[in-house]
C-alpha cells in the first residue's frame, strides 16, 4: 500500500512526535527519521505536481465545502521543501547544540509537532483548519522559545504566547464573519464571494491577526526578545520557519480574496517601510549578536510586506513571486545565521558584539557561515535574497513606484551597516593581546549553518527554475 506523499508529509512528523514523546531516550533518532522521511516525501510530491500541476485529496472522501481537502501546488511544495531542508539541517545542528538531556528530550516532540503544523498550513485549503494549525504551531513554538528556561526566555515566551493567542482569536473572529456571509470556509468559496461588509470585516480581522503573528511593525513587539533568548536551534526554527507560516497564509488569503483596496495596500507597504527603518535602527543599536539577528528578521518581514504592497493594481503575479522568493531566501539564510550565531556564542562564551573582536577564540567556520548568510540577507548577487530583492525593485520601477524602490535601497544600506558591525569584528585581530586561536569546529555542528548559508547564496543561481516551479498549479490566481 503506497502512502500518498501528501499524507506522509503530515503524518510522519505527527507519529514522530508521538514516538519521540513516548521514548525520550530515542527521541533524537526518531526525530531525525521523521524529518528524513519528509525529505523523501517532498520530492515525490514535487514530481506529482510537476506532472499534474496541482494535487489534491478530499479527506474522508467528503469534498469541500462540507469536508476539508488538502492541496499541493508549486508554492506549497516550495514551502514544504524549504521547511523540510531547513528542518533537517537544524535537526542535525540540534544534535550537538542541545547539551542538556532535558532540553533534548523536549526539543524533539515539540519540533515535530511544529513541523506537523507547518506542513498542515502549506497544504490546507480551509480557513478554520488554518486556525487550528496556527494554534498547533503557536503552542509548539512557545514551548521551543522557553526551552532554555531562563527568566528572559520565559518572559519573552509569555509575551509571545499572548500575541499568538490574540492573533489566532482575531483570525477566528474573521472566520466567523466569513461563515456568516457565505456559509462556507474553503478557499473556493472565498474566491467566488461577492464583496460585502461582512466579508471585508472577516478578511480584515484575519489579516490583522496574521500581521500580529507575522510581526509586521508595529505589531513586532514580541519578536526580538522571543527569538533572541531561545536556544540556537529553537531560534533558527522560530525565525527561519515559524514566521513564514503566517506570511504564507497572508499570501494565500490576499490572492484568494477580492482585490483589496489601493489605500489598504499602501498602508501595508507603509508598515513594511516602517519595519525596514525601525528594525534597521534597532539592529544598529543592538548590543548582542542574537538580538541583532532577531531585529534583522523584523526588517526582512517588512521587506516581504513591501513586496506584497508594491503590486498595486497591476503586475500582480510578478510581485507575489518576489514575495515568495524573499520568504524562501529568508527562511534558509536566517536559519543558517541563527545557528552560526549560536555556534559563535558557544565557542566565544558570549555574544556581545562590541567584544567579539577582543576574543582570541575564532570559530572560523561559524563566522564564515554568518558572513555568507549576511550576503543573502543584504541581497548581494548571486544569492536568492538578491533575486528576490531585484524582482521586487524591477517590478516597482516598471510600475513607477519609486518610493518603494527608495525604501528598499535604504533598507539594503542599513543592513550593510549593521552586519558590518559584526563582520568587522570577525576580521580585526589587532585588539587581541593573546595569540589568536582559530577554532576549526566540530564537523557536524558547523556543517548545518555552513550548508544553509552556502545554499542561501548559491540558490540564486537556480532562481529561474524555482520561479517557474512556483507557478505550477496557478497559486497566484493567474488564468490557466
Amino acid at each position, binding site marked *: 500500500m503506497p502512502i500518498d506523499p501528501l499524507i506522509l508529509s503530515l503524518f510522519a512528523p505527527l507519529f514522530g512526535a508521538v514516538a519521540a514523546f513516548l521514548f525520550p531516550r530515542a527521541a533524537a533518532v526518531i526525530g531525525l527519521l521523521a524529518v528524513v522521511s519528509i525529505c523523501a516525501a517532498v520530492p515525490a510530491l514535487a514530481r506529482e505536481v510537476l506532472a499534474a500541476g496541482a494535487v489534491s485529496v478530499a479527506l474522508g472522501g467528503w469534498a469541500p465545502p462540507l469536508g476539508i481537502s488538502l492541496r499541493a501546488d508549486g508554492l506549497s511544495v516550495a514551502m514544504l521543501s524549504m521547511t523540510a531542508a531547513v528542518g533537517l539541517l537544524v535537526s542535525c545542528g540540534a544534535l550537538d547544540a542541545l547539551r542538556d538531556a532535558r532540553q533534548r528530550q523536549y526539543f524533539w516532540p515539540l519540533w515535530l509537532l511544529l513541523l506537523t503544523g507547518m506542513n498542515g498550513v502549506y497544504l490546507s485549503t480551509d480557513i478554520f483548519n488554518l*486556525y487550528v494549525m496556527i494554534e498547533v504551531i503557536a503552542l509548539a513554538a*512557545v514551548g521551543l522559545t522557553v526551552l532554555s528556561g531562563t527568566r528572559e526566555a*520565559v518572559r519573552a515566551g*509569555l509575551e509571545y504566547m499572548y500575541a499568538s493567542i490574540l492573533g489566532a*482569536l482575531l483570525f477566528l473572529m474573521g472566520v466567523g*464573519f466569513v461563515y456568516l456571509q457565505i456559509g462556507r470556509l474553503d478557499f473556493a468559496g472565498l474566491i467566488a464571494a461577492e464583496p460585502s461588509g461582512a466579508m471585508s470585516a472577516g478578511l480584515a480581522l484575519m489579516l490583522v491577526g496574521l500581521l500580529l503573528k507575522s510581526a509586521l511593525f508595529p505589531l513586532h513587539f514580541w519578536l526580538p526578545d522571543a527569538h533572541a533568548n531561545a536556544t540556537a536551534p529553537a531560534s533558527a526554527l522560530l525565525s527561519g520557519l515559524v514566521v513564514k507560516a503566517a506570511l504564507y497564509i497572508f499570501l494565500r488569503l490576499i490572492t484568494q480574496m477580492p482585490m483589496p483596496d489601493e489605500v489598504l495596500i499602501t498602508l501595508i507597504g507603509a508598515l513594511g517601510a516602517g519595519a525596514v527603518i525601525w528594525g534597521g535602527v534597532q539592529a544598529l543599536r543592538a548590543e548582542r549578536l542574537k538580538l541583532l539577528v532577531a531585529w534583522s528578521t523584523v526588517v526582512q518581514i517588512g521587506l516581504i510586506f513591501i513586496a506584497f504592497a508594491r503590486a498595486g493594481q497591476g503586475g500582480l503575479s510578478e510581485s507575489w513571486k518576489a514575495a515568495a522568493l524573499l520568504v524562501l531566501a529568508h527562511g534558509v539564510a536566517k536559519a543558517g545565521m541563527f545557528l552560526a550565531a549560536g555556534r559563535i556564542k558557544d565557542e566565544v562564551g558570549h555574544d556581545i558584539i562590541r567584544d567579539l573582536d577582543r576574543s582570541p577564540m575564532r570559530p572560523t567556520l561559524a563566522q564564515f557561515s554568518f558572513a555568507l548568510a549576511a550576503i543573502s540577507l543584504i541581497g548581494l548577487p548571486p544569492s536568492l535574497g538578491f533575486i528576490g530583492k531585484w524582482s521586487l525593485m524591477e517590478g516597482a520601477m516598471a510600475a513607477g513606484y519609486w518610493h518603494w524602490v527608495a525604501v528598499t535601497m535604504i533598507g539594503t544600506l542599513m543592513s550593510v551597516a549593521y552586519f558590518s558591525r559584526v563582520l568587522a569584528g570577525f576580521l580585526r585581530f589587532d585588539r587581541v593581546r593573546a595569540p589568536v586561536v582559530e577554532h576549526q569546529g566540530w564537523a557536524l555542528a558547523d556543517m548545518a549553518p555552513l550548508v544553509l548559508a552556502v545554499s542561501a547564496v548559491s540558490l540564486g543561481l537556480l532562481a529561474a527554475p524555482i520561479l517557474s516551479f512556483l507557478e505550477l498549479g496557478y497559486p497566484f490566481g493567474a488564468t490557466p
Partner: protein
Amino acid sequence: MTPDTIYGMTGIAVFAIGLAGALCAQDRLRRMLALKLCSVGAGFLLVVAAWRRPPDVPDPVPHALVITGIVVMVSATAVALALIRRLQTLEAEDAD
C-alpha cells in the same frame, strides 16, 4: 428584534471588551482572562450564525467549530498559565 441579533451584538461587545483588556491590562492573569473573553465573543458569533428560526434546526458545522475552538483555547490557556507560574517563581527567586 430576534435572538440572533441580540446575541450577535452581545458577542461583538464581549469580543471588543476582551480586546480592550488584552491590549491594556497590566496584570498577567487579567490579560489571560481578557483573551478568554475574546474567545467567548468569537464563539457567540459562530453560534449565532448557525442559528435558524425554529422549527428549523441549526447548522451543526459551526457548533463543531466552536467546540474545537473551546478545546484549543483551554490548551493555550494552560500553557500561558504555566508560563505565568514559572515566571513568578523565577522572579521570586531573583528577588530573594
